[in-house]
């Protein structure tokens, strides 16, 4: 009496259990249970006897592979029956049950071709119907056990293995009816091997248009063929050359291979900042520097010679160059005709056409405005993308599983780094385990009070230090200001000395930026945070607080003191002075960073290894270095208005910094030992770049443009009340010249100057946010319900399997009795 499945196969070790053995695949519950029911009370000799004997020999081997699964399912029964659950004893599952368990669709969906084909058949079906990604309830066929995977699974369960060809045919049918792009995307996304995909594609193309593919082959002459191949060959050589040039590709791979994704994210952030600056530089170069360079204005008589100090202080020779605001003319540049430099606004040469004119002040205003606007859009877009990647709706916390499944960094290549990573993993797993266990323990009130006191003290120290810094910067800047006033009144002063004294304030600020984070680290070490992520956030917060307050004081100094009364320090052009200040700050910051990297890190490594006796090199402090980058970028953004070539300086600085940091990291540091959540930290960094940094810079610039009167004798905005009036005047002129464009002027007046529009816009924005938050809440509830549902399905499954097993046991018992009766007779 042959059953539907071939039980006479020898049960070889674990080979049978592999679902890759596709003959055993998809022997379904339905078939088996149906057969058992049909067989019912018949007591003929079943193959189960044979199976039983064989299984006794092999079950021990099977057991070792299956005890885990068997145990999980068997736990309930064993307790009820009081049987021993020693996993080394042969598991009581019969091998038929084992076979069925192993070929259960939930276990084979990842492996068997048939299941993948049907899954993708359904996906292509959905694409064809252009339905939504989540299948609607209507698409489920009716079944007594509606299950989540029902739309894909039914096909597998019902069809047998022989219909894999049919499944493949149906999939090919569906693929043909898709558009080319969709088809390729679907093929690409299938988890099949390239050979199988080629086969599918060949079948699809075969039926499609068999003629067109052959017509692509150049049928003409061999020569033409070789020419084409040669051209392609050179094109690919060029492409691979370009690929190898890809900025810092090899260096980044080495850093990633040795230190992992965390440290790599710092360098990638540096690269991002570089691209922002390149964009800014291109815009200002094309629209401001180039036109002005082609029409140089008249220079004042006293132009100092170049000295070395000028590179650092940005003053002296550089004062009256393209670098600063003061150089730019405020009139419309016109193309000279008849070889004359004709750059005054009043006289209008006859040979000019209006189209060749270039309104410098308008250009300046719009260039700065547009570049800020575009940078804002790019930042917000990348911030939202990054945020979307790292934010998860589901609140359930599965740190251990996530850590174990996704923490191995496949990029790491170096053997010592791999060992280090393994060690880190071990430590982190132990820590997390301890945390999970310890969560139940509660700390006593005395302990809690003590911890609170320690935290309070640490925060007091940090805030006190920050306040001290801020006050010292304020008073020192006031002192320098007064000093400048004094020297301005004196007749004969050494200009070099004056320039050198201007370097004092930047040096002080950079020094404070260098030393105070060390103090914060000490305070954090004293506090002994339990959770490393909290520690990182606190450190970030404190550093941020320091930098924001220092920058705020500096902005007040520049815009509130210097810009308000520039005549006090004998300044003709306060914007140029502010531009120079920012240049000095950038250069000083760079010099101090270099010194810190080259000497500080080296010395610290020697110190910690020799004196403190630690075996390891110090860890690379990612958060602090990124904050330094953000600080420098804020300075650059504030300074673009006053010094259009500042992005170029920043580009050079970042390039140099990259190479210095890479070599320093390779020599002196090791990967951070604390777990570092890369995508979360990247999101935070982009957010920090957008919110305090870019927002602060744009507020500064907007305030300058809106309300501070520009200096009257230099720059593109002289003779204007505020810089903003350049735009206004242009609109008014437009309106004057073309009355039809008065609509534009009116729109401009309403949108930009009327606050009502802003309120309405903000209101709509808030409503949309509220709506989305409600949607997210609803989805959370659905997730919770679905999880409950799946648990109940699991209970169903366990019940069915144990029923199956008990049916087998009964049959075994009956047939044994029969056999003993037979043999007895």
């Amino acid at each position: 009496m042959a059953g539907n499945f071939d039980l006479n196969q020898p049960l070889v070790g674990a080979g049978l259990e592999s679902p890759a053995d596709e003959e055993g695949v998809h022997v379904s519950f339905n078939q088996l249970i149906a057969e058992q029911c049909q067989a019912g009370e018949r007591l003929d000799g079943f193959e189960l006897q044979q199976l039983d004997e064989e299984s006794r020999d092999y079950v021990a081997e099977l057991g070792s592979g299956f005890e885990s699964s068997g145990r999980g399912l068997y736990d309930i029964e064993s307790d009820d029956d009081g049987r021993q659950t020693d996993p080394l004893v042969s598991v009581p599952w019969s091998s038929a049950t084992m076979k069925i368990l192993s070929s259960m669709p939930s276990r084979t969906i990842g492996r068997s071709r048939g299941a993948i084909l049907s899954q993708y058949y359904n996906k292509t079906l959905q694409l064809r119907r252009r339905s939504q990604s989540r299948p609607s309830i209507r698409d489920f066929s009716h079944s007594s056990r509606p299950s989540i995977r029902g739309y894909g699974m039914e096909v597998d369960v019902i069809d047998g293995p022989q219909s894999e060809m049919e499944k493949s045919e149906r999939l090919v049918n569906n693929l043909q009816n898709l558009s080319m792009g969709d088809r390729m995307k679907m093929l690409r996304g299938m988890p099949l091997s390239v050979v199988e995909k080629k086969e599918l594609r060949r079948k699809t193309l075969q039926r499609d248009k068999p003629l067109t593919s052959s017509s692509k082959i150049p049928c003409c002459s061999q020569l033409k063929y070789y020419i084409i191949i040669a051209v392609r060959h050179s094109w690919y050589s060029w492409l691979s050359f370009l690929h190898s040039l890809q900025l810092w590709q090899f260096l980044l791979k080495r850093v990633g291979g040795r230190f992992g994704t965390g440290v790599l994210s710092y360098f990638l952030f540096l690269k991002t900042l570089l691209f922002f600056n390149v964009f800014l530089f291109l815009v200002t170069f094309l629209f401001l520097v180039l036109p002005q360079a082609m029409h140089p204005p008249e220079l004042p008589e006293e132009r100092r010679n170049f000295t070395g100090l000028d590179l650092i202080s940005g003053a002296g020779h550089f004062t009256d160059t393209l670098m600063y605001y003061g150089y730019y003319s405020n009139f419309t540049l016109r193309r000279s005709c008849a070889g004359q430099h004709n750059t005054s606004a009043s006289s209008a040469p006859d040979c000019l056409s209006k189209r060749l004119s270039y309104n410098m002040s308008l250009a300046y205003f719009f260039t700065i405005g547009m570049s800020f606007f575009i940078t804002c859009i790019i930042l917000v877009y990348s911030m939202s993308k990054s945020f979307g990647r790292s934010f998860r709706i589901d609140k359930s916390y599965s740190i251990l599983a996530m850590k174990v499944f996704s923490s191995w960094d496949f990029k790491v290549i170096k053997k010592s780094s791999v060992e280090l990573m393994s060690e880190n993993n071990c430590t982190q797993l132990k820590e997390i385990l301890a945390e999970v266990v310890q969560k139940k323990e509660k700390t006593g009130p005395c302990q809690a009070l003590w911890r609170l006191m320690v935290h309070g003290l640490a925060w007091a120290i940090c805030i006190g230090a920050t306040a001290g810094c801020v006050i010292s910067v304020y008073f020192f800047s006031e002192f320098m200001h007064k000093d400048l006033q004094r020297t301005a009144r004196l007749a004969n002063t050494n200009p070099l000395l004056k320039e050198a004294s201007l370097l004092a304030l930047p040096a002080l600020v950079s020094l404070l930026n260098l030393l105070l984070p060390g103090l914060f680290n000490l305070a954090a070490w004293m506090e002994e945070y339990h959770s490393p992520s909290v520690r990182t956030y606190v450190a970030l917060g404190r550093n941020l607080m320091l930098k924001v307050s220092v920058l705020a004081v500096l902005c007040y100094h520049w815009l509130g003191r210097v810009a308000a009364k520039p005549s006090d320090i004998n300044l003709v052009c306060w914007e140029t002075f502010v531009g120079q200040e920012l240049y000095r700050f950038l250069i000083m910051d760079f010099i101090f960073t270099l010194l810190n990297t080259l000497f500080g890190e080296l010395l610290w490594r020697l110190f910690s290894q020799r004196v403190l006796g630690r075996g390891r090199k110090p860890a690379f402090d990612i958060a602090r270095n990124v904050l330094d980058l953000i600080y420098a970028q804020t300075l650059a953004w504030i300074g673009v208005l006053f010094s259009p070539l500042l992005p170029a300086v920043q580009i050079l600085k970042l390039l140099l910094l990259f190479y210095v940091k890479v070599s320093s990291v390779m020599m002196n540091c090791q990967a951070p030992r604390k777990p570092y959540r890369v995508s979360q930290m990247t999101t935070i960094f982009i957010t920090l770049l957008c919110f305090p940094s870019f927002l602060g810079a744009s507020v500064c610039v907007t305030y300058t443009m809106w309300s501070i009167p520009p200096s009257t004798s230099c720059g593109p905005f002289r003779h204007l009340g505020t810089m903003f009036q350049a735009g206004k005047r242009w609109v008014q002129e437009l309106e004057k010249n073309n009355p039809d464009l008065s609509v534009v002027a009116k729109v401009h007046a309403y949108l930009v100057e009327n606050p009502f529009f802003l309120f309405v816009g903000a209101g709509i924005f808030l409503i949309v946010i509220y709506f989305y938050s409600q949607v997210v809440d609803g989805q959370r509830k659905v997730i919770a319900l679905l999880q409950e549902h799946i648990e109940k399905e699991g209970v169903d499954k366990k019940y069915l399997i144990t029923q199956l097993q008990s049916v087998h046991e009964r049959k075994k018992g009956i047939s044994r009795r029969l056999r003993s009766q037979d043999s007895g007779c």
Partner: protein
Amino acid sequence: MGTTASQLDTLRLLEYEVSVHSSIQELTFLTKQEILHAYQRFDELVPKEVKNRLDYRISMNDVLTLPELKANPFNERICKVFSTSDIKDGSLDFDDFLDLLSAFSDSATLDIKSHYAFRIFDFDDDGTLGRHDLEKLVNCLTGGTDDTNLTPDEMRQLIDNILEESDIDKDGTVNLSEFQHVISRSPDFVSSFKIVL
């Protein structure tokens, strides 16, 4: 490039395939340059005298000499998963090699990555991650040497916690869907499941 005649012919053959039929590039997530670069690396491992280079199967030991795979504790599993040879010895031909690079590339979807990650972690090839698989996985993660191993108690507790967190239908194993569910909530997976040649 210092190639021999046969190598150049195969390169041309590959270019022909890549350019005229655009066959391989459309089926993988790799760009044309990456495929060519992969071919160069693959070619270095094929012995010089072989004629039909694209169809040659490199043995697992040779593949494991690649610096990108040498130190990885999962290297043998990776070879076995991507190998399409009949004897399941982990040998790779060029198509398999491209499959491997495509799954580990920058632009591969989360679906593909989680699918292959699941198969790599499934040490006994039974379609789910049982206790045994999880134990082996943790040992690979922690290095397997004596002083970095977890004690049996800790291991048992760790696996119990993992199963509690990720086994939704409570059958004692983590199947593909449950695995993908955990992975989808982990934003670091995509960036760490990458190999760059």
